[in-house]
């Protein structure tokens, strides 16, 4: 898969179209697997979308005692295999990003699988295909690198420079609010 998911949290407008789309995806059983949450509800209405990172070495799969979480050859981390999942919820506590969800009724874990039926054919996942503000995008790797480079250039507009011991000040805080 040459395409990548590209998230820009600050572009999120909180419409939750991605969650509605996620519920419609085949095999998702009308339950959304992504998150849209407030950064600080008492401060402002800024939201952010959250999806699975599809780790190369996923902690969720490593903490699974049943070996139920499988990774496809394209690198997509799938939900726990239904026949193996013993419903212990270790994955929800092992994941450093808090992604896996657990269905207590059906006693199984489910998580963002990047709409594997679509993305394996390089079709954008449901959430990315409906996002009106491009907070979630499914783009070529080259395009992603280009966007990252442009984000760094935006620092010049903001007047930030990296200092010794703190390169993170230089990492862009926002992107795309201005047109070029």
């Amino acid at each position, binding site marked *: 898969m040459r395409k990548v998911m590209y998230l820009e*949290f*600050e572009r999120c407008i909180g419409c939750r179209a991605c969650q509605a789309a996620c519920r419609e995806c*085949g*095999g998702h*059983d009308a339950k959304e697997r992504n*998150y849209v*949450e407030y*950064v*600080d509800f008492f*401060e*402002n209405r*800024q939201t*952010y979308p*959250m999806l699975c990172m599809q780790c190369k070495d996923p*902690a969720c799969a*490593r*903490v*699974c*005692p*049943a*070996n139920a979480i499988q990774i496809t050859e394209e690198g997509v981390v*799938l939900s726990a295999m*239904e*026949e*193996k999942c*013993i*419903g*212990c*919820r*270790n994955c*929800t*506590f*092992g*994941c*450093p*990003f*808090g*992604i*896996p969800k657990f269905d*207590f*009724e*059906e*006693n*199984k874990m489910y998580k963002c699988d990047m709409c*594997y*039926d679509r993305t394996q054919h390089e079709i954008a996942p449901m959430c990315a295909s409906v996002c009106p503000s491009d907070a979630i995008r499914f783009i070529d790797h080259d395009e992603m690198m280009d966007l990252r480079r442009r984000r760094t250039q935006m620092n010049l*507009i*903001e*007047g930030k*420079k990296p*200092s*010794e011991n703190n390169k*993170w*000040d230089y*990492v862009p*805080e*926002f992107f795309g*609010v201005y047109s070029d």
Partner: protein
Amino acid sequence: MSQLEKSFYSKSSMYSFIVVVILFMSMWIGTGQFSHMDWMLFGYMVSTFIFFIGMTVRLTSWIMRPATHEVIKRSIQKMKSKNSQKRNGKAIFKTLIDNILLQKYIFKRGVYRGIQHWLIAWGCIGSLAITFGLTLGWMHFKLVDSSTYQMVVFNIPTIQMAADGWLAQMFFEGLNITASMLLIGLAMAIIRRIRDKDLKVTQRAEFDLFPLYLLLAVTLTGLFLTVSYKLLGGWMHPQLALIHQITVVVFLVYFPFGKLVHLPMRPMAASVPMNYQETPGVDTRDCSGCGELYSNDEQIEDVKAILGAQAFDLKNDEGDWLADYCPACRRKLRVMSQLNLPKGAGKAAPVQTNNGIHMPGFGRKRSEDFYQPAHSGKEEL
């Protein structure tokens, strides 16, 4: 134990050896020093041994995984602890009944799926039990007098029954009953696999479909044996028996290495409520971020141990672990650190720009020295 282990090539070879010896001894006892061997079942017997060796190798490597090992260690520790033995027994018993015997959670995924899985599962377990019992000579039937059969289990004579009574019929038709259960379940499963488009997303021919068709082949050839001797006067019976034997041998050799191996693994679910839920469905540990209850101490301890065993460094700069936070707090931590607002950076300020227009969003307050004239302060920037 470690001394014994060293004399073997690996753990799994040691356990396989032990299992083979136990099976052989049980045969020796069951068949009365091999005097009641059923040589018709010789092929089944060899493949049964392969089945048990494969199962041992598979389960040993599974239990050696850090995650599985940790959960089993916790289960043993829980079972040993004296003060909660009554609760443990109750928790295991209830989960075994609900999850394994009745498989309630599958019925909640769909009644069709529930019926289908229940029929296949218990059809399989029943058939395997009868097959192993007969091929390894654990039980056989003896004619006491002209109209009475006696069941002999491990060479110990047990119940007697009339040769044409209902109990005898139940025993003789045992495999036919389980095969009929399997046939219905398999037909339902195959129809589901054909009709349900959602399933086709992740199903794999060699993993999901092969065992289904293999089981169907075993069931059909087995049932056709009955049809042959009951209705067709034994037509083609030896050939059919051979075909059935071939399918069963393939099935038994495949069993430990494919999808079906969830049969011995899945019962570990019975230990989950005992290990991790003091009261089922109630969390007791609070998140170190927001204070919400999200899990309990033992589970988080285990998760940390498993991650530590596999060199996952999920410790924060502050010294606490990501596992100490609830999933919602972890999502927020990730977003904030990606947006340059790590914990302790204060609240998100508007994004500040050179042209003075403040954009809403996630910015960080500039330090005061940013506003100092360039010549007055540090030159190195």
